[in-house]
């Protein structure tokens, strides 16, 4: 028995159905199941040290404002004073351990790879959809590429960050929510996006 592998069930499994008119959808969405996630909190008074250690090891400086910074598939999203949400492409459960050894005594790290579910969202109407639940000004001048926020969406806590645009008028956001909320989040997202058309990307 010991050699059997376990099958994974993504948080949004079975939920993601397109809604509304999707020939030219206002919003496209897909679940990022290929990410490793971790919370990183600097030890007392070690914020600068943690940022330096990351810079040395990964060639990126975790931001000290509500922004993200990325290099080589690793992103540090700021989630508070000297606290970050680390996201790495590729998946697996090694990220936390690696960060722990990279940052040493400068930070505490917790694996959150399955703690959060992450959605990738884009489309010309994505801001209009977010406006139906997120109390945050996402105007491109106020929330530029590189910006990040921790807030609520329709009573559900979210970590939100803006990636580079896909094309003109195709802004891209990623949103992380605690995994258990996937069903409720989807109900809000799909009903809010219905008028614009919500397409699900594989």
């Amino acid at each position, binding site marked *: 028995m010991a050699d059997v592998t376990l099958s994974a069930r993504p948080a949004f499994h079975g939920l993601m159905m397109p809604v509304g008119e999707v020939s030219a959808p206002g919003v496209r969405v897909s679940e990022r199941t290929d990410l490793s996630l971790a919370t990183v909190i600097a030890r007392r008074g070690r914020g600068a040290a943690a940022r330096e250690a990351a810079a040395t090891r990964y060639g990126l400086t975790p931001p000290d404002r509500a922004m993200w910074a990325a290099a080589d598939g690793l992103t540090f999203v700021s989630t508070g004073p000297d606290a970050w949400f680390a996201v790495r492409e590729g998946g697996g459960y090694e990220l936390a351990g690696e960060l722990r050894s990279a940052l040493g005594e400068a930070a505490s790290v917790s694996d959150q790879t399955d703690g959060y579910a992450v959605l990738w969202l884009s489309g010309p109407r994505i801001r209009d959809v977010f406006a139906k639940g997120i*109390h945050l000004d996402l105007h491109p001048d106020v929330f530029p590429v590189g910006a990040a926020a921790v807030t609520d969406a329709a009573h559900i806590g979210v970590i939100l960050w803006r990636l580079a645009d896909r094309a003109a008028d195709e802004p891209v956001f990623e949103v992380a929510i605690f995994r258990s909320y996937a069903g409720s989040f989807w109900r809000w997202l799909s009903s809010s996006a219905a008028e614009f058309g919500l397409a699900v990307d594989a």
Partner: protein
Amino acid sequence: MHEFTYLGDAAYRRPDPQAPDALEAFVEAVHTRVNPAGIHEELWYHGSGCRSWLKVRRDTRTHEIHGASFANPETTR
């Protein structure tokens, strides 16, 4: 507002539990409130955000906010 939770007077200090009058000091600190009509420096928790405790100066008559800072003196940002 609902992203934040109010706690009370920011002047709250946990009394010295070893002091001879610790009991009275704790009774007082935990229960008695200044409750001013005017500027009040108070604690708020950013629960659905960065989870920081903040000190907020607010006018209790108008709800006007006159500044905020991290309650943790060691938080620099």
